[in-house]
Each structure stands twice: as structure tokens, then as C-alpha cells.
């Protein structure tokens, strides 16, 4: 199989097990984002693929070749570091050509490849500058450039955008996605930022405590999170979790402190099998709505839910309500009404077709 594969990889640092056992296969020219909170083992995973960290057990294949015990330079990879790690004593051209010079490529070819990469990244005017004379965004580009001149089989990114400001980060996201299309190479990207994961990835790998929680397309992981961790991690603001119990013989509704929501037939069917167990209802903030805007629509799947609003945060296109349902704190994102109409406590609507249920003990989705 081509692409990149981790086969039953285990990683220990002394007595601490960082990655209990992990298998993951990444298709050729796929853009995979590994996302998770800090300390979840995502960087370690990337460094094992790069060869900067040994595996304690298991196998790593790149392009079908077993590279588990090969040094980085024989793995046909390029890597962009979070801190950029530019060589301070070399100018931009020197930084970008370092790998090619080490490989003993002919001078003309090196110049041509650096020129092309610099054009792609709009760095042509800066080739003679030293890293210290560049802005953060430019340094970031040089770091990218250094990896793309290599024309490696697989590109590894270790949180490359986390040192940039918000605006630059979002434009670099777009550029990276374009770069991936142009280069058509396998890219593995590690981040703690779920927005980066959602916007760029072909597939997302969500990790927690060294274990892969779910692998799927951005739509998959958003629409059908496998457990409460994934559900809470993906989506912004994050999902509200409310303890509740299933009601009725056929699990027609979920009821908890301060709310009762009917369940969509399919979910009810699944929930029926687990009836009697206590559940957690997952409500995404964006599936709340202001009552007035939906009133009178009989076909609506919306159900009434009472919110005790403490603060409304206006962000332009919508507003976030910090509120309480019963005793639980929740966030709701609703359309921003006219300014004359301050958001207050009262009945709001919730789209019942978008209710998620999780087993309260295991946290797994129902």
C-alpha cells in the first residue's frame, strides 16, 4: 500500500506510555490533520513518522516502504516546525537550498527549484535576507519553502501556524490548502486548533491521551461524533452537554433538568436499545434559534427550550448567549436580532433533528 501507515505503534518515554497502541493509514496525496489537546501525543506521532523519535514497538511505512528504523533523510519526508527553525546564519535562499546542497544536487537545478518555490510563496524579493529581517509571516513562508523545494513524498507540519496572528493564520490556511492542491503530496498536519483541522483536512484524526478517538472527514466528525470527547472538541463554540434520561417506552424524548426534547425517529430507535440507561444529551450552540423567527411553521422540527440568559455576546453575524438550562451552563448561538431587542431569558427553539445522545458512563455516542 502506498501512502503513510502506522501499524500498531507504541511509544513509551521511560515508564510513561505516551501512545498505548496506534494504527492509522493515510492515503497517498491525502491531507490528514491530527488534532487534539496539548499532551495528547499528536506531536510525538508526527515526530515518529519523521524519524526524530524512535517507536517503542510497531511499524511505520511511508510510500509502502518500511521506514521504522531508517533515519529521517532516508524517509523522503519534509517537515515544517512550529518554531520554523530557520538557520539564522543563512539567508532565505540558503535556508531553502540547504537540503539540496547537502544532497549534492547540481547548482543550476538548486537555483531553479529555489526560484520556483520562492515564486510560489511570493518570497522572490526576500531571497537575500536573513531570517531576523523577516516578519513572522515571511519566516513561516520560508519554513514552508524549505520543505517544498525538497519535493518530498510526504510533508509533515507541526503546528506551523500557531505563532502567527489570527488574520495571518487564516490566510496561511488558505494558502496551505492551495499548496496541497498544487503539489498533490501526502501531507500530515498536527494542530490543537480544530478550525485549522476542519478547514484544511481531507480527513481528521482526533486524538486524546495517546488514543485515536475518531478518524473521518470534517463532515463526519462534526455530524456524527463517536463520543463526547470528539463532540466537545469539534465545533465552535463547543457542544453543550446536559444530563438527561430517556422517556417513554419507545424513547421518544430525552428529559433532564429544565428541558425535554423529542427525539428524531432514527435516534429514538437506536436509543430504545439502550433504554433505562442514563444519557447525556449533546446540543450544539448553533442549533438553537430565536423563537420569533420560526413561529407558525408547523412542519418544523424545532422544540421549545427555556434559556436563562445571563450575557449576550454580539459578534456581528450572530450572537452567543451565555445561559442556563436548569442548573447547567450552556452556550447558544442565535441570529442577531435588531439592537432594540436585547436578548433575555425566555423560550427559545432547538432543532430536535440535531440532538446527540451519549451513554453517560462510557461517553460513546448512541
Amino acid at each position, binding site marked *: 500500500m502506498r501512502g503513510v501507515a502506522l501499524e500498531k505503534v507504541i511509544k513509551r518515554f521511560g515508564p510513561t506510555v505516551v501512545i498505548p497502541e496506534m494504527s492509522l493509514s493515510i492515503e497517498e496525496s491525502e491531507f490528514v490533520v491530527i488534532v487534539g489537546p496539548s499532551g495528547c501525543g499528536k506531536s510525538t506521532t508526527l515526530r515518529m513518522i519523521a524519524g526524530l523519535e524512535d517507536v517503542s514497538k510497531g511499524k511505520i511505512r511511508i510510500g509502502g516502504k518500511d521506514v521504522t528504523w531508517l533515519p529521517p533523510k532516508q524517509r523522503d519526508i519534509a517537515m515544517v516546525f512550529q518554531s*520554523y527553525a530557520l538557520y539564522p546564519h543563512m539567508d532565505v535562499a540558503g535556508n531553502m537550498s540547504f537540503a539540496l546542497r*547537502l544532497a549534492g544536487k547540481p547548482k543550476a537545478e538548486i537555483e531553479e527549484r529555489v526560484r520556483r518555490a520562492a515564486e510560489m510563496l511570493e518570497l522572490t524579493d526576500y531571497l537575500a535576507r536573513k531570517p531576523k529581517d523577516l516578519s513572522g509571516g515571511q*519566516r*513561516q513562508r520560508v519554513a514552508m519553502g*524549505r520543505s517544498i523545494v525538497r519535493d518530498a513524498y510526504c510533508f509533515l507540519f507541526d503546528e506551523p501556524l500557531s*505563532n502567527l496572528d489570527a488574520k495571518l493564520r487564516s490566510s496561511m490556511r488558505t494558502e496551505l490548502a492551495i499548496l496541497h492542491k498544487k503539489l498533490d503530496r501526502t501531507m500530515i498536519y498536527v494542530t490543537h486548533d480544530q478550525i485549522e483541522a476542519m478547514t484544511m483536512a481531507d480527513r481528521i484524526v482526533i486524538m486524546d491521551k495517546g488514543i485515536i478517538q475518531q478518524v473521518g472527514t470534517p463532515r463526519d466528525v462534526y455530524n456524527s461524533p463517536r463520543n463526547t470527547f470528539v463532540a466537545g472538541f469539534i465545533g465552535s463554540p463547543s457542544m453543550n452537554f446536559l444530563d438527561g434520561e430517556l422517556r417513554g417506552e419507545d424513547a421518544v424524548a430525552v428529559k433532564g433538568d429544565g428541558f425535554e426534547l423529542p427525539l428524531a425517529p432514527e435516534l429514538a430507535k437506536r436509543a430504545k436499545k439502550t433504554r433505562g440507561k442514563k444519557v447525556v444529551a449533546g446540543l450544539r450552540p448553533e442549533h438553537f434559534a430565536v423563537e420569533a423567527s420560526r413561529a407558525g411553521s408547523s412542519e418544523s422540527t424545532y422544540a421549545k427550550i427555556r434559556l436563562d440568559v445571563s450575557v449576550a455576546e454580539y459578534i456581528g453575524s450572530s450572537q452567543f448567549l451565555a445561559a442556563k438550562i436548569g442548573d447547567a451552563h450552556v452556550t447558544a448561538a442565535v441570529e442577531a436580532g435588531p439592537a432594540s431587542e436585547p436578548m433575555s431569558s425566555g423560550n427559545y427553539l432547538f432543532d430536535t433533528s440535531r440532538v446527540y445522545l451519549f451513554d453517560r458512563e462510557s461517553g460513546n455516542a448512541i
Partner: protein
Amino acid sequence: MADYSERRFARILGHYLALIALAVLALAPIWIMVATSFKNDVIVQSKEPLWFFFVPTLDNYAYIMTRGKFDTYLWNSVIVGTASTFLTLALGGFCAYALARAEFRGRRFIANSTLLIRMVPPAVLAVPAFALVVVFNIDNDLAVLIFFYTALNLPFAIWLLFGFYKQIPVELEEAAIIDGATPLQVFFRIMLPLMKSGYAVAGIFTFRIAWNEFILALLLTGRNTRTLPVGAAGFITDTGVEWGRIMAMGTLIVIPPLLFTFFAARQIIAGMVAGAVKG
């Protein structure tokens, strides 16, 4: 308002007075040395010391340059100073790099104890060193002095370079490894250029100590292997201390380390690693 600026003036005045006092303390001995080197014996020995106004003479310089073996001593000092500095930096550099990067048992202990060795005064080592040299019958050889100075300077050089190496982010090495560099290429093409400042600082200290050292040099050198400080001491004779000649020699001794320091200091560029990491 007036009160404030008056106090400010007083404070600045105080600062400058203190600085001037310190400068005089530091520079006066040098002035005495240089001035004395241009005085003839009569002026040197006169009851009322002449600080600034006297008829200068080059007799002392002429004497030490033409009689005696100034050129041999200078050559010895240059050889011993540069060779031991080079050896110290080369060995100490590799050692500091290993201490800063490699993981091995006792690493921290070694890194911290290098300075302890430095606490031993060279004079304490003089007698055992002399005994060793006599036993092995290797006196009258510059290599002996080079060897002892290297040993003497290594702990401090290691400690100093260790600190510099630790400041260089590991990611730079990892990036180079990913780029396909071998360990030696990482060291010579990435680390060494970034360590210029560190080596320059360590070099200044090492060279100065090797250049000025007296006690070991006195004991371990013979007629033809004397270094300049030992040569200068030769003007303390049974018939009297030849101050003018000692001071002339001293003035000349000062020049090479000054040149070396100016040259080395140019390698010290503040914030050499700036721009390597972070935005």
C-alpha cells in the same frame, strides 16, 4: 519641578563621579606601567614620583629588544597561547556540545562539576605538575605548558560553551537532520556558525589566562622555553629591580591579548540566533 531636576542632576553627577573613580582605579596602574617604561632609571628612582612630565626615553625598549631573548620569549608565548587556546576550544566545544545535547548518565553532574575543578588555584597544582615533568623528564618543552594550560582552561571553557550551546534551539538541529545532514554536518554547518560568539568569549578568556600565567610557566620552562611573563621577572635581579625594563616588557606583553580580544570581540554579535525561531 526645580526640585526634581536638581535631584536628577545630583544623581547623574553622583553616577559620573563614581564611574570616574572606578576608571581611575582601573587605568592608573596601566598608566604607571606605560609611563615607567619610558623613564630612565634616575627618574624611576627619584624621591618625588613624576607622574606626567618627564623626558621620555626608549632606552628600556631598546635594551629588552636587543639584549636578552625577547623574540624567543614572544614566540614561545604566542605558540603556547594560541595552541592551548585552540586545543581548549576544540576539545571543550565538543565536550560542551555533548553535555548540552546527548542524554547519558551523570550528564548533569558533570556539567555542574566542571566549574568546581576551576576552584583549584593553579599554584596548588604547580608542585605536582613540576614533579610529573621531572619524573617524565619532559621539561624544556613547550608542549608541556600547552598541555597544562589546556587542562587548566578546559573546565571553564566547557562551562561557558555549555551555556551557549544550550541556548541554541534543538529544532535547528532537527530541521537539519530532516534536511539530510549527518551529525558532523549538523555540527559544522549549523552549530559552529551559531556558536561564533560563544567560542569568541571562551577564546578571549582562555588566551588571556594562558598568556599571562606565571607560576606554572616559571616552574615548567627552561632557558629556551620561557614565556614573556617569566622573561619579565628575569629583570628582578640580585643587584636590584630594573623597573623600567620590566614595565617596558609589561607594556609589550599587553599588546597581543588586546589585539586578540579586538579580533575575537568582532565575532560576538549580540542575538546571533535571533530570527531562528518564533515569529
